[in-house]
């Protein structure tokens, strides 16, 4: 366990750029823009912004940045897995890591777990910091549009906590849901290195094409395989009608929203996907074990 944690820390040290420095730069730019806007008194707000209160404005903003940070995380993780599984070969460090008393499976498992734990945690912290900026923007908006009212700090904290909790659950479920796709590009990276990114799309595309050529017009449009992948790419939150909740008068309630969100998830698909992910990581580790180090 101690060595696994150390290997995850190694991943953090090697790949923190996309998950620590880049979000730090983004937050820095957002803060600078905000400070510049305040200092130069350049904030402008349309009178009709479609939200009933400052608190709803804050909730809408906080949920919107949650979606943006989630998209950033999923994209960064895709590139992380495409790189990390072959990074030891690319860095000419394979022989060094092979001289350590850890199995190839443990090394790849540490890479997989880093992408599922420490890196999402960093992005989540960045998201929480963004919440502070959203709060500042909300207060400025409330001053410009007095009809929105100014809720107390406790109300903001409570609302922020509810949304952050919902985002955390959503983030965890998204990571689990997309785990087989990450494992797929990671496993390809073990064999094909940087070519894993185009191959991650090309191989399913070719399988779909082959299916269409062989079973012409006997199945659904584009074929069973690509239809399945298309459906599997959709994540549960798509069906939640979040807009209705956001633009209602009631405050965001995680106790209501989280069960509703979890009920949209196809658990059989999720568990099956995790098994596929584990098998892909295992296959990649066996390939890594069997190939001469350099």
């Amino acid at each position, binding site marked *: 366990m*101690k*060595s696994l*944690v*150390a*290997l995850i*820390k*190694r991943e953090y*040290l*090697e790949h923190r750029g996309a998950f620590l420095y880049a979000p730090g730069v983004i937050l820095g730019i957002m803060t600078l823009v905000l400070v510049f806007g305040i200092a130069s008194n350049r904030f402008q707000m349309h009178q009709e912004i479609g939200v009933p209160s400052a608190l709803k404005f804050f909730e809408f903003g906080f949920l919107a940045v949650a979606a943006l940070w989630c998209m950033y995380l999923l994209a960064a993780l895709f590139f992380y897995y495409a790189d990390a599984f072959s990074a030891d070969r690319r*860095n*000419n*460090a*394979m*022989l*060094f*890591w*092979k*001289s*350590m*008393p*850890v*199995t190839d499976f*443990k090394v790849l498992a540490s890479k997989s777990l880093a992408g599922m734990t420490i890196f999402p945690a960093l992005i989540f912290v960045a998201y929480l910091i963004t919440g502070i900026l959203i709060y500042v923007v909300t207060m400025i908006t409330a001053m410009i549009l007095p009809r929105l009212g100014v809720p107390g700090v406790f109300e903001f904290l409570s609302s922020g906590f509810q949304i952050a909790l919902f985002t955390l659950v959503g983030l965890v479920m998204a990571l689990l849901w997309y785990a087989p796709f990450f494992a797929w590009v990671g496993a390809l990276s073990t064999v094909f290195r940087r070519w894993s990114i185009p191959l991650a799309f090309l191989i399913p595309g070719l399988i779909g094409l082959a299916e269409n050529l062989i079973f012409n017009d006997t199945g659904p449009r584009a074929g069973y395989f690509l239809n399945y992948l298309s459906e599997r790419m959709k994540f549960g939150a798509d069906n939640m009608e979040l807009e209705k909740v956001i633009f209602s008068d009631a405050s965001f309630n995680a106790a209501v929203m989280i069960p509703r969100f979890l009920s949209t998830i196809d658990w059989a698909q999720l568990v099956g996907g995790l098994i596929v992910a584990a098998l892909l990581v295992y296959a990649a580790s066996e390939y890594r*074990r*069997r190939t*001469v*180090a*350099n």
Partner: protein
Amino acid sequence: MNDLAQTTAAPIVSARGLRKHFGRTEILHGLDFDIPAGRIYGLVGHNGAGKTTTLNALLGLTSYEGTVRVLGEDPYQKRASLMKNVAFISDVASLPRFLRVRELFALLTNIHPNFDQAKARGFLEGTDVKMEARIKNLSKGMIAQLHLAVVMAIDAKLLVLDEPTLGLDITYRKRFYRRLLEDYMTEERTLLITTHQVDEIEFMLSDIMFIRDGELILHMQMETVSSKFSQVLVRPDQVAAATALGPIYSETRFGQTAMVFDGVDRDRLAQFGDVTTPTLSDLFVALMQRGPAK
């Protein structure tokens, strides 16, 4: 050819019928050898002779045919657990370049149960390698010193060095081997080393193995080498008589003829000129041009 009856204790390394194919080409042609504990072995051969493939097989880095046991274990199946007691440098450029020296030591402390950070820091005292330095910013010689400090700080029973000083200048090379001999070697430890600069390690070797085209052509203790092989600087009027004794190698240097003999009595050779023990490089050149030593 082999001088195997060196000890009754279980050998640290044992290979029987070690073969390796790359495609249809056989690289190793059934090597048989034992390496007892407490010895310093040199494995010498031309480029492409099979040295690195042999070491890779011993270190569990590649598959093979035949039987190999290192510390009683099958290295290909048990590489990870074996690495608790086996340390190796296969390429001095293989240290993870993104780490600082301090970070590397901290990770190794948690990854390798037999790594002693205090020892490693001690080995670096008096060198130019600083704990806060990034490995990518170190010179080639400093990286070699760091890598040596890392492996010497691992309490291993077997240390394998594959061309550990490749690309280093003579000062670093001499310091490297002196450090290894003075600070690391004990009776319980075994060292297996390959290098092209055989003259530089000759002083420290207890045993030598020459490999040619995937076959061991010499495997014996250094004491046996000096009693078995003789080199004579033959006087010009004695060349014909000396040639009649069947030298395994003969060359003319600055007008003098040097001949290497295998198993010919030194008193008998003394009549032809000055008799010495051939250096390993002379013996290597001699044996690479004929069949296995008898």
